């Protein structure tokens, strides 16, 4: 699925729609270069999931991991920008990030490809102009496909 957004606020709204659909164990991968809107998307996602206000969500680059919400509804926001392999991702969560419950968003997933859980939703962000972005959404595994269908329906409903 391809989604076009015309502003950072629009990108955040798509995140909000996805956030509402998330449940424990879900994995969302956000790929795209600097300034493509990944963290902005997570602001919406966290708000939609009801774990944090959009303003509370900050870039996780420095810590590599920011957590929001209360168990079991915890959002783990991982930034692999500065990671050099799957071992770095495993070290972050004591080797069991998914087993820790909640749901997880990973930015720069290509840096830790070999350690990624197999099932989830992948969004690739690209620049279409100073404010416009394109989000290419693909499913990886059965839960990913279910999320993709639900997101498509939610966005269609939002437009209509």
């Amino acid at each position, binding site marked *: 699925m391809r989604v076009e957004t015309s502003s950072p606020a629009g990108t955040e709204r798509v995140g909000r729609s996805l956030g509402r659909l998330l449940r424990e164990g879900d994995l969302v991968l956000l790929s795209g270069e600097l300034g493509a809107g990944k963290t902005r998307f997570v602001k919406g996602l966290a708000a939609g999931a009801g774990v944090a206000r959009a303003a509370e969500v900050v870039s996780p680059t420095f*810590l590599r991991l920011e957590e929001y919400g209360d168990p079991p509804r915890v959002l783990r926001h991982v930034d692999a920008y500065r990671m050099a392999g799957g071992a*770095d991702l495993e070290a972050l969560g004591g080797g069991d990030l998914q087993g820790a419950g909640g749901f997880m968003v990973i930015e720069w997933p290509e840096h830790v490809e070999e350690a990624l859980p197999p099932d989830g939703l992948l969004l690739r962000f690209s620049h279409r102009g100073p404010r416009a972005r394109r989000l290419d959404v693909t499913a990886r595994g059965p839960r990913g496909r279910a999320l993709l269908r639900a997101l498509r329906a939610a966005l269609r409903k939002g437009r209509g």
Partner: protein
Amino acid sequence: MRVLGIESSCDETAAAVVEDGARVLSDVVASQEDLHAPYGGVVPEVAGRAHEANIVPVVGKALRDAGLSLAGLDGIAVTNRPGLVGSLLVGVQAAKSLALATGLPLVGVNHVLAHAHANMLCGTALRFPLVALVVSGGHTSLYLCRSPLEETLLGATVDDAAGEAFDKVAALLGLGFPGGPAVDRLAREGDRGAVRFPRTRGAKGTLDFSFSGLKTAVLYHLRGQDARPGKGANRAGVRPADVAASFQEALVDALVKVTLEGARRARVRQVVLGGGVAANGRLRERMAEEGAAAGFEVVLPPPRLCTDNGAMIAALGTRLLEAGVRDGLDLDVHPRLLRNPTVKKAPPRRPAPAGGRR
């Protein structure tokens, strides 16, 4: 009072002994920058492992350099927030073990606030209430400190930290890591009025910062409106030094304006800087000038005190211990600072029981 300070929240494993919160008897930092440079940043696995390997030798050296044994100490201070849990735990576990073995009082310290209190280590008197801007790779926080014990977070970044913006723009310009010093250097050869980058900040009426849009504006300026990816894709006619200088000017503009606005609102006399980005030449220059013009006493830390160190932890820890603040062996780590301490209470503190706790 001689206090051992332990710091392990990010790159550095550090320990120091400070006397009376002001005189540094020893200051040992094992930096992992060399380990991290090949990756363009801090790698957590490397960081966690290195902290574990470094902590005992670093603490040992801090004591030896100070010419003290554990018996010569009066207290132990340790960074317990904010930071990466795995890294924080290494320092906190070490501090707890030492407190358990010696019976010395233990106190957990806010790393970000400690950066502001680093200024006490060069003889500068902090005059409370004050406003402190702490800017680094992971933090952009504006605090109102009524005393060493009472702080209110006035504002913080809603997206990227100032130091992170420097690192990422340095990456866009093809400069090395860490990006702050590299951009600062290049900017000196550039025209800071060459490009008018947006002066972004947090939501209206707040004292929050926002640097993500500035980073994106630099990206578009470098690559043109279609922002074609790839290194060396910079448009013809773009001078990197001008971009560095103009970007730095926009960022510093926001830092200075919001900080002085916070100082005016809080009606303080003193404005204090801390953190790695406080070493930035242009920020120091403008904060000193404009702060003085607005009637504030501006305290700029010497660059050597800007980076992470154990001495600042010991300095703030001393103030807390003097005021009777103690943490028990259940001292926990907190990865994030609470955005609004008036809504949610800061980590629990127990005042010292009457007669002290030994």
